[in-house]
């Protein structure tokens, strides 16, 4: 048993001596695993094994780990190496050495140098004192050195970089030879000599330097005199010369850097001709229209989001490079706390432009402003009317801008410092005066505004301004806080939208309502809405939800609710303007329409004012469905109810009215004329929206006129509805009550002449509609396709693996397999370990035994020899 391990050990030793290639080439070492199939192109790891090598590796490893542990077993004491970083494998060995050294030094320092004050250690670098090197450093700075020995002399490099050891050796060797003779000189003397030498050298260098200085100055002066001849301009004084040089250098540097960092010119898109732009816009509109239609049908499709978002108006001069004029580009006049701000930059610009005509600069500024305006508002020119209005607005602006630029150019025409002087007294002006000025001239409206943080801020901002100015303020606030200018601006503008909505609501609830201002603010709100659809959606949803909730509560309480107030009507109108009303389902317009329908069904009509509100709602409802032509039963019911209210004789009705109206009872004669003669003096006029909130009709004639207005509006709405619903299969059933009512109870003769046409139109439309009623049939089913018999081709990606199982099963299989393998491996390892240990134990026992044997033998031997000696002695004695 003892033999084989010994042998192996020997073999190991031999093997260790050999290199790997040697082992691999040795056919006795290599075991080749037999392959069952030879697969082309497959690479296997395990075709060749080196059992000897691996076995010896395993044995050494065990010796290092297992054997050590075994030997340490049952031993309580052990030796721990406490040297710094001994067990820290992360620490680099050099670091280890360094730190140990440092610690050593510290320890010795603490012990010895406690009371040692003077004797400081000299810091060295490659054996040279650092102090000396510093001295040398001075010498390097001087120009002399370069003259004497080239820039990269051996000394220099040595002193600077510590290199050049070879060269230095030589010199030191020479020195040694030189010094060899004068060994007698003491160290003190030697040092003194050295010092003297160095001082002398220093002095010489000083002198040389001064000389050079003088020479260069002389040269400079001479050059200047020549320069004066060459260039007309008188150069500045000597003293100013140097800083200027420096400045020049900086300027130059800046130029270089600027050029380096400047964006490289990029190919821009071709300038578009007006025709092209027009065509593109038309195409865009067509696309939007198509999309609207698709949404109306309620088909859900994946749409490209980007296209919708990036719809901004492009002017003919737009290079489409995302360049937006912001306040830095535009010369602006601004107020800071009610005081004028005129920046120096703008003055300079004005100065440059001073030669040109004042009007030009004004026009430029104005055109800039216009562009800006257009971009922000994302205006699209569609109809002639709108264009006209746009022009009006811009004309307005033009005037304002012109006035302003005149003012500015006048200032700039004055002397350089004049504007500053002018500005100063203005700062002193009292606030009231400023206010007066603001009121006096539009031109003095500030150009920059901070975005309001709260609703009250906005109110303060807009208070006391005319409606046009309020619009301008909002527009400018919006421009100054464009999201592209700063990070927080987006949030500010989103807030602004909410505040503006509230503001409009407030305007509408005022008595009398300030609708003109609300009207002016619409484009701004629209712009904001286009920018932040989500916020707009949330705000309007909140308003609608609150209103509907309020109505619901009142309904539960009383069973009926009052008609919505003017602000709600305005919100409904805004909803229709900001969001498409034709969508099959829309997060804002669908609830809005539901709200309208709820109001039309649940709110009883009890006064002329209610009738007016109802008609506004009716108009809104008609607008909501004007594009999609959807069926709105509540609207039809309501219009019928309104007409019913105008019928004088309520007996033998051929139709049913739907709640909230009642066939007979109170409030059923609201629109019946008190005096039929009022028909003659009445002419069709638009009713004021404020009538919704407060209707004051003093005389009976006025009341009758209002009644007639309501009636005409109602008839018009009926007419529109009858046109919308012409194609519905139940058209006749829907409009039959109208027919009976108009022909039997409210005949033409009872109406003023203006309404005759309307009346007859409606009746004609109703009777002329001939909807053919095809019996209903289910839609034809799509034929179910036959089963396809072509083979299904599945790509097999992993050969030799089990197929047909799910991924989880596969994973399970894999893990099972792995576990088995690991388990086997561990078992094998444990067996090997125990075998190894047993072997070692046996070894121990054997060595112990042999030792004992040897000792016994020795003892026996010595005893035998002793015995022998003794016997021999005995024999001798006997003899």
């Amino acid at each position, binding site marked *: 048993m003892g033999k084989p391990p010994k042998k192996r050990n020997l073999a190991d030793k031999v093997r260790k001596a050999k290199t790997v290639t040697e082992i691999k080439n040795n056919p006795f070492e290599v075991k080749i695993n037999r392959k069952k199939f030879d697969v082309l192109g497959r690479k296997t790891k395990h075709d060749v094994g080196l059992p000897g090598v691996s076995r010896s590796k395993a044995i050494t490893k065990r010796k290092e780990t297992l054997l050590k542990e075994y030997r340490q077993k049952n031993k309580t004491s052990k030796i721990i190496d406490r040297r710094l970083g001994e067990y820290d494998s992360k620490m680099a060995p050099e670091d280890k050495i360094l730190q140990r050294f440092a610690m050593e030094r510290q320890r010795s320092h603490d012990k010895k140098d406690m009371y040692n004050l003077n004797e400081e250690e000299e810091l060295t670098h490659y054996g040279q004192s650092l102090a000396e090197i510093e001295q040398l450093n001075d010498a390097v700075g001087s120009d002399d050195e370069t003259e004497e020995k080239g820039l990269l002399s051996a000394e220099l490099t040595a002193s600077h970089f510590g290199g050049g050891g070879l060269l230095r050796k030589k010199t030191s060797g020479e020195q040694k030879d030189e010094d060899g003779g004068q060994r007698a000189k003491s160290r003190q003397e030697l040092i003194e000599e050295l010092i003297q030498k160095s001082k002398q050298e220093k002095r010489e260098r000083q002198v040389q330097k001064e000389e050079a200085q003088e020479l260069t100055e002389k040269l400079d002066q001479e050059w200047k005199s020549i320069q004066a001849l060459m260039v007309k301009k008188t150069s500045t004084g000597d003293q100013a010369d140097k800083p200027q040089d420096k400045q020049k250098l900086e300027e130059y540097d800046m130029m270089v850097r600027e050029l380096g960092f400047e964006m490289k010119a990029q190919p821009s898109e071709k300038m578009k001709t007006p025709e092209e732009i027009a065509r593109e816009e038309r195409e865009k509109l067509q696309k939007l229209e198509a999309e609207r239609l698709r949404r109306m049908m309620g088909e859900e499709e994946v749409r490209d989001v980007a296209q919708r978002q990036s719809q901004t108006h492009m002017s003919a001069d737009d290079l489409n490079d995302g360049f937006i004029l912001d306040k830095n580009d535009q010369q602006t006049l601004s107020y800071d706390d009610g005081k004028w701000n005129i920046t120096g930059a703008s003055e300079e610009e004005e100065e440059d432009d001073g030669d040109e005509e004042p009007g030009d600069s004004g026009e430029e500024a104005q055109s800039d402003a216009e562009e800006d305006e257009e971009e922000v508002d994302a205006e699209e020119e569609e109809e002639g009317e709108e264009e006209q*209005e746009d022009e009006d607005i811009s004309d307005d602006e033009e005037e304002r801008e012109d006035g302003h630029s005149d003012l500015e150019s006048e200032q700039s025409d004055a002397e350089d410092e004049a504007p500053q002087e002018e500005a100063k007294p203005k700062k002193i002006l009292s606030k009231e005066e400023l206010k007066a000025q603001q009121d006096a001239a539009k031109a003095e409206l500030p150009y920059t505004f901070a975005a309001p943080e709260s609703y009250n801020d906005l109110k303060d901002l807009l208070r006391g301004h005319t409606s046009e100015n309020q619009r301008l303020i909002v527009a400018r606030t919006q421009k100054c806080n464009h999201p592209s200018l700063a990070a927080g601006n987006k949030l500010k503008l989103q807030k602004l939208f909410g505040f503006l909505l509230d503001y409009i609501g407030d305007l509408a609830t005022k008595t009398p309502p300030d609708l003109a201002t609300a009207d002016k603010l619409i484009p701004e709100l629209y712009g904001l809405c286009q920018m932040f659809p989500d916020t707009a959606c949330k705000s309007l949803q909140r308003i609608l939800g609150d209103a509907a909730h309020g109505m*619901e509560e009142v309904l539960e309480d009383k069973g009926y609710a009052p008609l919505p107030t003017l602000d709600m009507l305005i919100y409904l109108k805004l909803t229709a303007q900001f969001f498409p009303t034709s969508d099959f389902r829309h*997060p804002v317009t669908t609830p809005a329409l539901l709200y309208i329908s709820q109001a039309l069904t649940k709110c009883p009509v009890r006064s002329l004012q209610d009738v007016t509100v109802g008609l506004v709602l009716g108009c809104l409802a008609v607008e909501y469905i*004007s594009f999609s032509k959807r069926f709105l039963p509540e609207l039809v019911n309501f219009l019928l109810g309104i007409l019913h209210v105008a019928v004088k004789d309520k007996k033998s009705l051929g139709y049913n009215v*739907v709640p909230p109206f009642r066939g007979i009872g109170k409030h059923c004669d609201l629109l019946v004329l008190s005096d039929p003669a009022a028909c003659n003096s009445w002419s069709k006029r638009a009713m004021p929206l404020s009538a919704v909130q407060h209707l004051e009709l003093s005389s009976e004639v006025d009341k009758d006129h209002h009644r007639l207005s309501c009636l005409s509006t109602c008839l018009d709405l009926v007419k529109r509805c009858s046109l919308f619903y012409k194609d519905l299969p139940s058209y006749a059933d829907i409009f039959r009550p109208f027919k009976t009512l108009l022909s039997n109870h409210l005949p033409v003769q009872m109406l003023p002449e203006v309404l005759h046409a309307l009346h007859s139109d409606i009746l004609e439309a109703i009777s002329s509609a001939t909807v053919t009623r095809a*019996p209903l049939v289910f839609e034809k089913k799509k034929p179910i396709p036959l089963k396809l018999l072509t083979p299904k081709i599945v790509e097999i990606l992993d050969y030799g693996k089990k197929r047909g199982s799910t991924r989880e099963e596969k994973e399970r299989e894999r893990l099972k397999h792995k576990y088995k393998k690991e388990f086997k491996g561990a078992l094998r390892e444990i067996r090997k370990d125990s075998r190894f240990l047993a072997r070692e134990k046996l070894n121990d026992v054997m060595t112990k035994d042999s030792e004992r044997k040897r000792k016994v033998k020795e003892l026996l031997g010595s005893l035998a020899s002793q015995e022998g000696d003794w016997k021999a002695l005995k024999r001798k004695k006997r003899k």
Partner: protein
Amino acid sequence: MAPAKKRNVSSEIVDRKCVKNNKMDPDSVVKEILESKKHANDVFDLLEMLQSHKEKQAINAINACSKLFCTLLERKDLHCGTLPDEEEALRGEYTAQQKYEIFMCHRYNSCKEIIFEHLDHEEHSVKESALCCLMRFAESEGQHPLEDLDWSEHYSFPKELIQLLVGRLLSQTTDNALLLSRFQEYLEMGDVRFYVMGAIRDSVTKVMMRNKGMPLPVYQNNVFSLMSNISMPSNESELCTFMITQETKHEDWKATKLNEHRRAFEKMWLCFLKYKLPPSMYKRVLVIMHDSILPHMSKPTLMIDFLTAAYDVGGAISLLALNGLFVLIHQHNLDYPDFYKKLYNLLEPSVFHVKYRARFFHLANVFLSSSHLPVYLVVAFAKRLARLALTAPPTALLIVLPFIYNLIRRHPSCRVLIHRPTSQDDLVEDPYKMDEEDPAKSCALESSLWEIKTLQEHYHPEVSKTAKLINTPLPQQEDDIDELLEITAFELMERDLKAPSAKTIPLEFETATQLLKGGGDVLQEHFCLDLL
């Protein structure tokens, strides 16, 4: 003797107080009266206080009186049996004790009178304490009866007192709803309930007879609120709380028998409904009819007359009567001729707008769930509902459309309404006659549901989607109507408001420039911003 001393001291203090304030503490007066018969005449002070106009004083006096007379009843210090006249008693041959008893009994009666007056007091708190006091008297009287009981069939229940009380409570001039709701807690007790029911019947008969059957809204309102407060026990075991427990033959007492209770309940209601009611009262009765009246009657069929009359009234009252009728038809085998024809004629545009819409559709769903109905009837119903749907709000449409679909599913022969592949030529007129009252003659079978086709164009997406279901064969599974019945417009709106918003919200691309512009400029045509 310490307590006696104390008492003396306290009474002295009270006396002094009386002298000082010229105002007496009713509690101390009561104490004195109870203490000795000497102070018996202080009762007059108490009665005086009782008539005080001050709210607080009156309440205190009421409480004191209740304490005094309850104690006296307990001590049996009140005269028992027929009460002689006061003067007579003084003259008559009675012992001092008997004289005292007669005297006190007279005071007790006058006290009751005053407290009954207080039931009409302006202050609710006074009314309430008066009511409580009277009930306490009733309780005490019940336990310590003032009459000989041997020949009284009502055992020891103070029937007269309760009758008077009920008569007072059912005022013809003031609405006593609050007081009646307070009274409800006494109605929990079986005997009180029983005798109150009897008292109500008497009162109603008397008052209505006097008024010659004309409706008295306030009175009837009071009666109704008292009657609707009565909660009947559903079985004998629940009948266990009593105000007065009879010592002898308790089991034989009428008030302990559920059957007697039911009979009394039934008589009471029939008596009430016999007279003409105001319309709002009609509705209120009909609303509670099916679950709090019919189940507690001993013979529910007696309600048939009332319900059929209500069903013939029309409008909302008919809708409500349906529920009671349904119970009778379903559980009591009522055969109602032309029931479906009437139901058919109940379908009017207002059906979708009234408060009881959910109840109506629930019942209609039950009535039309039978598979034995003739096809013409079901088709007529479907067609009529569809026609009415043209005027309905979206919440109602979401009920009606599944309702119609369910009808078609249950009666497969109705499918012609939405699928008629055989006929070739298109019709010009709808063959259905809306004005025909008889569903059999309405020609609904020859028609199609074009109305639903129309509603496919409805503005609300969900209605439109539901309406579009008729384009394809309907799925077999019936829709559950009950889930949809209670939906409100606001809930419908919230579906859109609360829905997780889409990635991008579509925006209007036509630029808004003016308030009144856009959407066909309808608003601009008829309205302007200002008077100018």
